[in-house]
């Protein structure tokens, strides 16, 4: 008990110190400083290339300790059994994924949220916790659904920026999803969609993309962080060196959050010779999970209808 309390105290102090340092260090907005991006043949900043985030935001946007798995079962007291009076201090991987062992573990990571925490409304914070507890049933990534914005950016897969003359493509490897960033006026989206409707502009060296018309089916990470169809995202891609961009996304959703909030992270250039994106047709990987060999899983409830 004493050790546990000291652990909590140490952790709280560390969190406070970390938060203070981090907040002081965090600039209001990414700036390229002295760096000027190379120019394309038509004079625009050249963001062409294959990029990837290298962090744990895909597990959880917020700060988190390492843990055994994303899907956990509470540690059972084993006091009834002689010699097994102690229970493990950590929850254990859920039976569905226990066989993954350490490969199913979750590395700890810093928050990528400016200010540290996502400003949920109270009901939404509770919903996020419920989402996390029911991750295996609810995370759209598990079903190979398009990841939405900004989640597509920091999934553990590369993506490619392809700068055309009138539009810029962002091609993601996961689920073979592509966004078209319109750089001229194309009017409004006819429908809400998984990847939204993206209108871009240049602010000096920064590509600014306003993303609207997103549906409410996507998440932000594997920790259950979510939004409604009122979501609006403003992304900023700023070249910082030949090898990295600073990525910022400001998230507005008055149905779920108390105020707009921002995530920020570097994106790194993939430098392998002749690197390219590959197909990732994950539909093929989830059909048995979703439809069963003979039965059908109800897509709404996730329950198997035998």
């Amino acid at each position: 008990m004493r050790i546990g309390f000291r652990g909590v105290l140490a952790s709280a102090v560390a969190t406070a110190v970390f938060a203070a340092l981090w907040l002081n260090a965090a600039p209001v907005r990414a700036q390229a400083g002295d760096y000027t991006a190379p120019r394309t043949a038509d004079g625009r900043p050249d963001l062409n290339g294959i990029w990837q985030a290298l962090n744990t935001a895909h597990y959880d946007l917020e700060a988190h300790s390492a843990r055994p798995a994303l899907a956990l079962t509470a540690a059972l007291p084993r006091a009834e059994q002689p010699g097994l009076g102690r229970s493990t201090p950590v929850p254990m991987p859920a039976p569905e994924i226990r066989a993954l062992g350490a490969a199913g573990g979750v590395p700890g990571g810093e928050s990528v949220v400016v200010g540290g925490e996502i400003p949920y409304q109270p009901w939404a914070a509770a919903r996020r916790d419920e989402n996390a507890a029911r991750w295996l049933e609810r995370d759209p990534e598990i079903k190979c659904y398009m990841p939405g914005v900004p989640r597509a950016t920091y999934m553990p897969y590369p993506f490619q920026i392809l700068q055309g003359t009138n539009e810029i493509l962002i091609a993601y490897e996961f689920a073979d999803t592509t966004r078209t960033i319109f750089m001229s006026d194309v009017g409004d989206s006819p429908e809400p969609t998984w990847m939204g409707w993206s209108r871009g502009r240049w602010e000096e060296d920064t590509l600014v993309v306003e993303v609207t018309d997103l549906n409410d089916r996507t998440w932000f990470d594997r920790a259950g962080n979510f939004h409604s169809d009122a979501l609006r995202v403003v992304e900023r891609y700023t070249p910082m060196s030949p090898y990295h961009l600073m990525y910022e996304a400001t998230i507005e959703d008055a149905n779920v959050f108390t105020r707009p909030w921002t995530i920020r992270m570097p994106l790194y250039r993939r430098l392998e010779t002749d690197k390219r994106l590959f197909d990732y047709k994950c539909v093929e990987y989830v059909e048995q999970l979703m439809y069963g060999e003979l039965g059908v899983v109800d897509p709404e409830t996730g329950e198997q209808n035998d």
Partner: protein
Amino acid sequence: MSRRTQKLSRAVLVVAAAIITSNTERLPAQEVDDWTLSRTPWGDPDLQGVWRYEGATPLERPDDLAGRATLTDEEIAELARIEAERAANREAGLDGVAVGRSTLDESPIRGNEYNIFWQDHGRARQAYAQTSLIVDPLDGKLPYTDDARIAARRSDARYGVGPYESYLDPDTGERCLTDGVTAIMWQGPNGGHNRIVQSPGFVTILHEEYRDRRIIPVDGREHGSIRQWLGEAVGHWEGDTLVVETINFLDRTNYEWASIWTRASESLHIIERFRRVSETDMEYTITVEDPKTFTRPWTAAVPITRLPDGIQIYEYACHEGNRAMPNLLSAGRVEAGLAPSAN
């Protein structure tokens, strides 16, 4: 018949005649005055825009046109009249069968008039002189191996019928995977739009249906060795023609395909040529070689049309909204007596 259609039909007539006489696989440039090929800021021919095949010419030559590579001027005019009439009927809500089919019996999906939206071009298809898109072999037919011909008949017989015992029984399209690379540029109305975007060293083709995407390097690299569903495409410029060679397909011949001539196989080898010949027209040829499916290579010559600026490709969330799969499988279970009927 619009002036443009007339013009293009004549051009294609000349083109088709040239193919017959010279037996080349490339079409000669359409003669258009006062048009010059625009270039990207880095100097490549500019192929960007949204393109699709708008013609009424089928892939294979219909049996009643056997021995004839082209239609007469009168036949072209009549075909154009019929296509215009069908488009007008569709617009007026009078046409109850799939476009290009004159009766319900010919409709590809039996008893499912609702499915005509899959075939709705939105505007009249264009009448070309070619009697088949296939220009080689000269009979205008797919040169199937015997095994592939049986597989094609089997696929036709299963279509819309089943059995549907498992998610492996519907075809790759119904499973929201892909319908294959072969017909991507010219599949026609449903999701047949292709946005071409060029960036230095790459030509990217975004195909609407299944959001199939081909990021084609044109930076001088060689093919690698990693097999993929859509293969590995590598391109280069020959003059103003983009030549794309695609190999390294996965073997997915064991899956059901809506059209087995589009199926992915490890021996599939595709060569495509894209040449813009006017503001709105592209000559596209595709040569397909796969000993697993065909006795010899075949080539199709396809006139592709650039759609007006402002026409977009929209998100294709097929798997995300695939209610057909659970419904097919649950119905299959009821039919097999493995589950009680909801009624």
